């Protein structure tokens, strides 16, 4: 079976919490190797959309395709599908009761069923890639926020995912720690990883994104190249948003 061009495809996605509508009929494709940045005011539904992409949030309607796998089909093994989608969270969510190395290795052994030695070898290699090999045997709490987030990225990458999701990965960091994390993300983007990035870092969206999607009130209001979004914005809500954040 040929793989479709879109690594991730969303059609007609809607989601409400009670009477509060969070996502309204979202359709979206993320191409292979593409970096898509999701921007918009807080409460516009960016993070909820991202969490729907690996079904951490269950959508009310619509379909989500990961390559040839329909995630919203109840017959799909969602655990197996999630193992193909890496996710990085705002608050890192490292496992505090495990060493940094075990944080990276635990899903390799328990989900991918890789032998312990090999998994820990992979973990050390991934940690070296984000410059943290020296911290392998520390507890996460001994690391700075920026280092913790890089461990979280290494943990997701170790699963060799098809797609990486970043949920405001730098929002909880002190300003001086943001750079290191963004550098790792830019590296990934330029190395051809497929990425969906919810971010408030407009500089990152402009430089690293292939396309930028502007969300407003649960709708995908605008989706275009960074140049068009940041310099040629016509949508009044987007112009208003950009004037506030830039």
């Amino acid at each position: 079976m040929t793989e479709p061009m879109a690594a991730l495809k969303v059609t007609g996605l809607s989601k409400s919490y009670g009477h509060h509508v969070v996502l309204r009929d979202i359709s979206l494709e993320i191409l292979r190797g593409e970096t898509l940045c999701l921007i918009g005011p807080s409460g516009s539904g960016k993070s909820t959309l991202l969490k729907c992409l690996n079904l951490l949030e269950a959508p009310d309607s619509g379909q989500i395709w990961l390559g040839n796998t329909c995630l919203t089909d109840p017959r799909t093994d969602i655990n197996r599908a999630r193992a193909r989608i890496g996710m990085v969270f705002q608050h890192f969510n490292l496992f505090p009761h495990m060493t940094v190395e075990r944080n990276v290795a635990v899903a390799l052994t328990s989900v991918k069923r890789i032998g312990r030695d090999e998994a820990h070898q992979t973990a050390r290699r991934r940690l070296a890639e984000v410059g943290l090999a020296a911290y392998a045997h520390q507890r996460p709490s001994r690391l700075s926020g920026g280092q913790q987030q890089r461990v979280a990225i290494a943990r997701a990458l170790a699963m060799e995912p098809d797609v990486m999701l970043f949920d405001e990965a730098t929002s909880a960091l002190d300003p001086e720690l943001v750079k290191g994390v963004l550098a790792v993300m830019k590296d990934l983007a330029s190395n051809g990883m497929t990425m969906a990035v919810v971010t408030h870092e407009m500089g990152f969206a402009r430089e690293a994104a292939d396309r930028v999607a502007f969300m407003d009130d649960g709708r995908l209001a605008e989706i275009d190249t960074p140049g068009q979004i940041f310099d040629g914005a016509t949508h009044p809500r987007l112009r208003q948003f950009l004037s506030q954040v830039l």
Partner: protein
Amino acid sequence: MKDNPLLHTFFNWELIAGTFPRLLTEGLLNTILIAAGAIGVGIAIALFTAMLLLSSRWWIRLPARIYVDVFRGLPVIITVMLVGVGLPAAGIRPFGTNPFGYAILAIGIISGAYTAEIFRSGIQSVDPGQLQAARSLGMSYLRAMRLIVVPQGIRRVLPALAGQFVKDIKESSLVYLLGLAVGQRELFFIAQEEVARTYNSSPLIAAGICYLCLTIPLTHFVNHLDRSLREGRPARRTSRPDEEPAAGLASAAATAGENR
């Protein structure tokens, strides 16, 4: 001193010293056996019950809720009698005529109800982001709970758990109500026999000392465990000098401490 009735009744050293050999050779072991069995049964029941209590479906929570409320609400002595005397009388005799099994079961059922609430509160206090992170890596709900959420939840409630274990040790004395054969007698039973024989309360003091020798060190051991888990293991650093963080990163690590 022998003329002081208070001292004579409670601190008759000859009687205390005379009771100790049997307390130590027979009673202590049996108390530990009953308590450890009850704690084991309690933990097994509690883990299962806590998972049910955490369900989002009310009809799964309901039976667990009823179990917890009933056995936390009943006087211990009623539960012990119902299980130890009632069950065999009703023809349900999984342990034959051996009161040990019934005592362990009864105290385990009570302990399970309390411990389930302790586990539930501990597990609920774990940041939901931990489960999300584990699920996002492809772990099933049960695996994520087992590897990520439950170990963290239990660590947080270690002091409360120690309190429950102490209670279980003390309540093991209620097996007295079920009657014990020679060789099965636990601390309280032996002391009570001596009291009945000598009309003096000093053997109870001896048994009390034995209980304290179990419960106080247990509490302090668990508190020590709790502290060392909280503070991490600084020994790591001395054992791996090659992995000492570089000086420039030390300040970053310090700010991380504030963030947490």
